[in-house]
């Protein structure tokens, strides 16, 4: 296995759910040893999100999808940070660490005595980063936030939505993955500086602020012209026509952008309607701008007769920007992404191999930024870490387990049968209400991950 850039860097990861785990997953893929610290009463809540085959039996917390793809390759220890001994053990780990990543609301770590000023005493060149919704200072510092809310808060929703419609959110937890990447960059900047200066430092990352630059065009338009953004659906502020067109088949679509006269001519020729290019309503860019609706109707009259993938290939071969709108299953089966090795196949305990997308959209000549192993079971590395790094004896580990400071089974607030009922999703109901397009029992065979293949 070739060296990765962060080989030898040890990261203590106090984060949960999404943005923080994405940051540390990227650091892990880049070679860092990431030790995820949970508590038996504070296990990462994604350990209950999306179970293989929706099966909530046994130790479901060791195989949930959301946990698996954000934590593959990490080590997991449990420490109760509401217990003085748990805090003490964490501090002893800090002395062996290079980086601490945390995402509590700002007041929490100080209450535990685990804020940067305290940890720096234990490890003077420590790099520590805090991820929070709105940063460590200011009137909203104590506000909690989800990525689902921070996308509208960052301005991005003000220019996302159907034409003349309401602001809409993306179908993802937009700022969470974005923050995860930005936080990884922050740690890399700090490690770069530490290598050259010997100094560590503290980083205050506001997930709100990290996303605001994405609204750069709209911010500048307001500053320069006092103009607020409009929702323009899938159209472009610069190019015409651009849109998403219905294709043959159920809920299949093609996205198209035409930037100039040559591409317009190419599109008209490719779809077998060279006369469109000669029509004075569409012959030049200004005419096309004025007749966008009519062009959309013409394009859709053609796309409706074609399969979205075939239409993409036909138009791309003619030099036109076109892309099929893939559903999540089609993404997994896409020949381009598969050939590029975009999906890591991660082994899930008791559920077999599952393809999950890479976390960093970059390839390197000297190494693969791939998942380095399965996601850790709760407390799986208690012995390895607490004995290996801190030298605890078998007896001490047994006592800590006995006292609940460490452990490998989660404690839930609700009784276990209720928890199992809650983590099992009513997928058939979701299908009936239209939130799912399909529910395919033979999905493993389709993905080639069933026992037979």
């Amino acid at each position, binding site marked *: 296995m070739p060296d990765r850039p962060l080989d030898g860097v040890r990261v203590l990861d106090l984060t949960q759910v999404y943005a923080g785990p994405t940051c540390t997953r990227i650091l892990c893929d880049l070679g860092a040893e990431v030790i995820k610290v949970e508590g038996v009463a504070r296990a990462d809540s994604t350990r209950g999100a999306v179970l293989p085959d929706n099966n909530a039996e046994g130790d479901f917390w060791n195989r949930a999808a959301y946990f698996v793809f954000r934590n593959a390759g990490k080590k997991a220890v449990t420490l109760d940070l509401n217990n003085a001994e748990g805090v003490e053990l964490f501090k002893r780990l800090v002395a062996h660490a290079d980086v601490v990543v945390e995402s509590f609301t700002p007041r929490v770590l100080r209450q535990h005595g685990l804020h940067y000023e305290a940890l720096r005493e234990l490890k003077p060149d420590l790099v520590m980063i805090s991820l929070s919704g709105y940063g460590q200072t200011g009137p909203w510092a104590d506000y909690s936030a*989800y990525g689902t809310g921070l996308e509208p808060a960052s301005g991005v929703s003000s220019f996302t939505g159907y034409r003349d419609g309401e602001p809409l959110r993306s*179908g993802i937890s937009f700022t969470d993955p974005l923050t995860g990447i930005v936080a990884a*960059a922050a740690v890399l900047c700090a490690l770069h500086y530490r290598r050259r200066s010997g100094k560590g430092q503290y980083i205050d990352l506001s997930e709100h602020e990290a996303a605001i630059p994405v609204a750069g*065009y709209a911010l500048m338009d307001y500053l320069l012209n006092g103009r607020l953004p409009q929702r323009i659906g*899938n159209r472009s502020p610069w190019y015409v026509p651009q849109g*998403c067109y*219905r294709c043959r088949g159920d809920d299949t679509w093609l996205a198209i952008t035409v930037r100039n006269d040559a591409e317009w001519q190419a599109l008209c020729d490719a779809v077998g309607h060279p006369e469109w290019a000669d029509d004075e309503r569409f012959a030049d860019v200004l005419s096309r701008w004025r007749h966008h609706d009519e062009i959309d109707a013409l394009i859709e009259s053609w796309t409706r007769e074609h399969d979205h993938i075939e239409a993409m290939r036909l138009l791309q071969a003619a030099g036109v920007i076109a892309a099929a*709108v893939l559903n999540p299953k089609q993404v997994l089966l896409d020949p381009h992404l598969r050939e590029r090795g975009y999906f890591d196949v991660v082994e899930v305990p008791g559920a077999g191999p599952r393809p999950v997308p890479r976390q960093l959209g970059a390839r390197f000549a000297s190494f693969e930024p791939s998942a380095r192993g399965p996601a850790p079971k709760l407390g799986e590395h208690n012995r390895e870490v607490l004995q290996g790094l801190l030298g605890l004896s078998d007896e001490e580990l047994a006592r800590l387990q006995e006292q609940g400071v460490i452990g490998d089974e989660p404690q839930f607030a609700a009784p276990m049968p209720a928890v199992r009922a809650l983590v099992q999703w009513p997928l058939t109901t979701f299908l009936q209400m239209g939130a799912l397009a399909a529910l395919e029992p033979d999905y493993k065979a389709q993905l080639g991950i069933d026992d037979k293949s």
Partner: protein
Amino acid sequence: MPALSPAEGPDLALDGLRVIDLSQGIAGPFCTKLLADFGAEVIKVELADGRDVARSLGPFPDDIPHPDRSGLFVHLNTNKKSLTLDITTQSGRVVLRKLLAKADVLVESYPPGYLRDLELGHDALKDGFPNLVYCSITPFGQTGPYRDFKGNSLTCMALSGLMYVTGDPDKEPLSTGGEAAEWFAGLAAWVAVLAAVEQRARSGRGDYIDVSMLESLGAADEYNTALYSFTGAIRKRFYSRHQLPVYPMEIYPCRDGRIVVVPGGTGFPTSMALLLEQPELEQNPLFQNPWLRMVRWQEFEEILRPYLMEHDWEDLLTRAQELRMPFSPVLDPQQLLENQHLKERGFFQDIDQPELGRITMTGPPFRMSETPGRTGPAPLLDEHGQEVLLELGYDRQDTVILRERGIT
């Protein structure tokens, strides 16, 4: 506020790192802007007659195009230097090679093969410049069946699956606005370049980086693909909600604007009933049972919407947060620029931008205690051409010859 130079201000994290930037548009320039804002010296190489396309895209003051007045260009190119150089000529490539000899990183965003045909591909440069980190950013990457497809943010939204899950179920799939995929690619390139610089510190060799905009965005849509590979369920767009079992988590209108209702882990049933000032709702089955609420969401909204329409977003936000529910505001650019929280944090900073005057810019995306980022102007076209050429060892006569022949 003028940019702090290392001599008079605090240290900068990437001080001493020199980047040659052949990229244009959004993704590549965003990556190199972030490198520059944290201290790297970024020399932007623009073709004399093929300058950065962002200089042509605006927004411009009063909508009058001018290459040095594009708001988008300024936003994406702070703290860089600009040099015009025609790398399609042999003479231009000689100058570029002199630049690369003193550089640590090259970032480019041409279509696959374009620079190779100019003998500037990674294969052509790796022996002459073994320390150089070479980063290419393209819509689909350098390999695979789509490598020569044309693409943009919309294309990546479509092929990543994100578009299929965004929007209303009875309407067409919807792209996130603002060319969002470009920004994700820029961030992935930023991480990749920083990682390769660390790798180089160990191995002594510059790495080649292949950034795919599609894959950068696709990583953000991980859980919709995983939902299929773990359960066989194909997610479909369903209004503003993305997480199947968590409802509501959506933008709603209120009296003076909009609010994102996010109950969090503890919002139901008690906190939401208290927020709506109808404590008896705690016993309502729609408050008690999350699955029921999800399925009969229209009934729930008959309770929620009228209350929201009678209250202002700041009041709703404040009280929800007091009840430990992570509601969020819905802010447009004006509200962001006037936001008191961001003001107290000093996020936006004023700079003097030639051709635009004093203008407000976004600050660094995080605060580093020892090495804060810097805010500074974007370069005018070829603003630093003469300076860069003289530093490379050319004399004044050389620069005149290069300029008269259209090389620089």
